[in-house]
């Protein structure tokens, strides 16, 4: 059952030290900045964070990294023009990195949400990222055995949510949100707007409310979104 929280602080209450936290977004598109800020305030540390990138600039995930709360990053693409916070921590040996191909990252979280025990994936076969992993040739092609990636918590951003937790997203800000929502024990979602039950067309719901534990309205993320919403 979805609870509508009054504030981001209420939405992230109870997250514990040592948690694995799935954080949505591809770069800044879809990144739940207000929830991350609330998590920094809340104080949980020693976190393992799963996110496509390892932070941009000084806000959002980068701010969480800068606050020293993250023990390990699991991501596909840490190195970017503005990933200097992560870069510094990594070079100083202050953060662990598990590099996962982007599609495998998504599929491992999907497997966690879908009750799949493991899957044979062609991606990375024959490359250094397959080292130490079990492989199998199926129909003449080599596959790497990959395991589910679960979160204790998922923090994601969607566009509009109804009070039952049904979500729609906006353009490429959809990215990892729907997958992460299925893969965590506690899914926390920030949306631009919370609407009444019945306001979303059932044909167009992207994430059904069953996957959403807590929902909080934070207003539009930027001007373009305000116009479109």
């Amino acid at each position, binding site marked *: 059952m979805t609870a509508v929280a009054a504030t981001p602080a209420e939405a992230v209450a109870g997250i514990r030290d040592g948690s694995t936290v799935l954080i949505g977004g591809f770069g800044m598109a*879809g990144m739940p900045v207000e929830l991350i800020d609330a998590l920094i305030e809340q104080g949980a540390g020693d976190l393992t964070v799963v996110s496509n990138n390892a932070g941009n600039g000084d806000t959002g995930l980068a701010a969480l990294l800068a606050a020293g709360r993250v023990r390990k990053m699991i991501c596909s693409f840490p190195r970017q023009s503005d990933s200097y916070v992560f870069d510094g921590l990594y070079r100083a040996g202050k953060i662990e990195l598990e590099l996962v191909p982007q599609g495998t990252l998504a599929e491992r979280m999907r497997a966690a949400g879908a009750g799949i025990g493991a899957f044979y994936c062609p991606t990375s076969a024959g490359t*250094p990222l397959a080292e130490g992993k079990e492989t199998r040739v199926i129909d003449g092609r080599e596959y790497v055995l990959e395991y589910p990636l679960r979160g204790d918590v998922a923090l994601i951003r969607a566009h509009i949510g109804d009070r039952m937790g049904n979500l729609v997203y906006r353009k*490429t800000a*959809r990215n990892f949100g729907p997958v992460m929502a299925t893969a965590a024990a506690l899914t926390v979602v920030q949306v631009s707007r919370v609407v009444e039950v019945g306001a979303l067309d059932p044909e167009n719901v992207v994430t059904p409310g069953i996957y959403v534990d807590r929902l909080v309205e934070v207003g539009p993320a930027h001007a373009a*979104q305000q116009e479109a919403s």
Partner: protein
Amino acid sequence: MTLTAPSARTAEHLGRGPLSRDEMARTVARDIPRGSYVNLGIGQPTKVADYLDLGSGVVLHTENGMLGMGPQAHGDEIDPDLTNAGKIPVTELPGASYFHHADSFAMMRGGHLDVCVLGAFQVSGRGDLANWHTGEPGAIPAVGGAMDLAIGAKSVYVMMSLFTRDGAAKLVPACTYPLTGVACVDRVYTEQATFLIRPDGVVVLETFGTTVADLAARLEVPVRRLEDAAGA
């Protein structure tokens, strides 16, 4: 892909110099069939879009969850919720669709994209691709969607310079950089020549400002003329 009928001959364009970057992009674009679903990797391959007639039915995929991606957005068009894989703001064309990351990579891994165009550090004569990591100590590795594209698209085209600044060939007998994918590259577009990677070896499709003989002398990987290669 009827451009390279087995009976065709390698074209040596000698009355000119090597291709410019824009000419390379145009060459790649020319070889992408109408109606193809195409993913253009970040960096140099993005430029191919400038030479594709998106109105003619080529549809661009971006790994972060979209088909029907339009040109880069400018000014008021910029929407932070609509970017390409390089996080650059882009636009949406009629007939577009959005989907989440697991669906986007299922599309890639499942072999539904007709062509992807990637940059590379090295390509081997059997089509191994190295484009994600220099292997240098201290370098922060990042793979993104490169491995998924390398093994997923029906045809993988590489765009790269043929030689490094130090003069080392990037089309090699075996990659020395960490691999992105094994035996996955179909074509290599360079400023000096376009190469086909075939099961029986590397074939030169055309040259620009040089000859096959000259290339063969400068490369360690054996290359042949189209007319000397078995039909593929």
